[in-house]
């Protein structure tokens, strides 16, 4: 690979030399390598699960310019894994929280902030002033956007993604190597792959993958080792097994192939079907709904209503409203346990899985079945505030 970064014009102060001494004494880095790190400009898209370890370690390593793209606000549920953010940051812009911590670690790093939602109108402009892009986003639309923008701008895309306790990492969009679309030409249909909020994620997992990303960024800058170009690392944290698969450049790839058809950024939200993450009930038929207040009123009046909970047993243990538990995945096998002559109100955590359950039951001939709008979270908000939310 041609040299990505030219460190020849950079100087390091005595303070910086002391700070990075553990790098400088390694033959793989040396003063020359540290100067390349200082000359390098790396853009981190996302300052959450993956972005936290990425930004932390790149800052510590002395990458001279780090760009951060994030429009989001720190949420209490982020703290389990997004280690850039502390309890006192809940409610703050992630960017502000991130910059405070990174500056405290290394004041020599210049941080450029992009308090924006990355989209087809701004991506190429933002990418222009950086050498490497590190993708730490959480939805398919942005991943395809980042990939395409990297290919079109000629910048490598250091990629990682996670799900529960498994992760993937690779480098896409180098000139000779494959891009993300070579591996996955199309996104999955809406609702097939849950987000972290729906599927959960082992808190340490983005830590593991984010540091793999930071390692690959640093290797690219220094020009050492064997980068993950054309290699997909699969991490199974539960088994602690690392496997590697080969990724080939697809000669017919619409973005990076010999005859590209995608020469400018497209509408990625449309490409992924609304959004690449689950956000609304996918059924096209109107699902009958009942509000929590109405259900409470009718239960208090001792009306004959059967409450069906389609969450998982471990969720039931966190909180429940004494519904009959049949997890959504088991419903087809256990539907005979339900009495279709009864009025059934179905709920889950927030109303999405239960909408699917109502759809399924109606198609199975149940006529008196409704969905609890907002799920048990809405119930905990408005009816019984003693219930824990999760």
């Amino acid at each position, binding site marked *: 690979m041609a040299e990505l970064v030219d460190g020849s014009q950079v100087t390091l102060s005595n303070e910086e030399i002391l700070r990075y001494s553990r790098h400088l004494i390694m033959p793989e880095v040396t003063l020359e390598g540290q100067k390349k790190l200082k000359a390098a400009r790396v853009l981190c898209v*996302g300052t959450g*699960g993956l972005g936290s370890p990425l930004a932390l370690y790149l800052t510590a390593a002395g990458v001279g310019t780090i760009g951060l793209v994030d429009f989001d606000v720190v949420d209490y549920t982020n703290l389990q894994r997004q280690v850039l953010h502390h309890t006192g940051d809940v409610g703050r812009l992630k960017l502000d929280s991130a910059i405070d911590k990174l500056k405290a670690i290394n004041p020599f790093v210049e941080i450029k902030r992009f308090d924006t939602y990355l989209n087809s109108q701004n991506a190429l402009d933002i990418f222009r002033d950086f050498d490497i892009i590190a993708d730490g*986003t959480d939805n398919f639309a942005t991943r395809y956007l980042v990939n395409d923008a990297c290919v079109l701008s000629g910048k490598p895309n250091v990629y990682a993604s996670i799900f529960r306790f498994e992760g993937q990492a690779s480098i896409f969009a180098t000139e000779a190597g494959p891009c993300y679309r070579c591996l*996955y*030409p*199309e996104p999955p249909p809406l609702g*097939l792959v849950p987000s972290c909020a729906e599927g959960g994620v082992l808190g340490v997992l983005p830590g593991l993958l984010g540091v793999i990303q930071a390692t690959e960024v640093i290797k690219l800058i220094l020009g050492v080792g064997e980068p993950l170009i054309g290699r997909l690392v699969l991490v199974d944290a539960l088994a602690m097994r690392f496997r590697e698969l*080969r990724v*080939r450049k697809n000669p017919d790839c619409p973005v990076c192939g010999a005859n590209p058809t995608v020469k400018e950024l497209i509408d990625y939200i449309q490409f992924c079907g609304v959004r690449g*993450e689950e956000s609304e009930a996918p059924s096209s038929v109107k699902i009958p709904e009942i509000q929590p207040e109405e259900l409470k009123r009718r239960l208090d009046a001792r009306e004959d209503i059967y409450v069906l909970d389609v969450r998982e047993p471990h969720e039931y243990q966190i909180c429940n409203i004494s519904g009959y538990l049949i997890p959504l995945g088991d419903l087809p096998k256990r539907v005979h346990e339900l009495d279709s002559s009864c009025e059934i109100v179905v709920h889950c955590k927030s109303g999405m899985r239960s909408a699917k359950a109502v759809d399924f039951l109606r198609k199975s001939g149940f006529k008196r079945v409704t969905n609890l709008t907002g799920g048990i979270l809405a119930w905990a908000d408005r009816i019984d505030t003693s219930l824990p939310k999760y």
Partner: protein
Amino acid sequence: MPIKVLIPTPLRPYAGKQAVLEVTGQTVGEALSDLVAQYPDLRKHLFSEEGKLRSFVNVYLNDEDIRYLSKDTTPVKETDTITIVPSVAGGR
């Protein structure tokens, strides 16, 4: 001859919650057919209505993508491992 198929996390709910399954077949295509015969719920996640492998799912024979081998006519042997690699986006 039993061949191992590695099932990724997002698909395990449709494969009896298993991470590794055994299938038989002389080719990748036969092995996958055996897989969806054992676990019919997997079919729609792996194949379109017309029976084509979905493009957000990659199938590897050992460490090579079958698109660059002979796709579903790629021959398999007993010590081989088929890995299903779907795309996931989580990062936050």
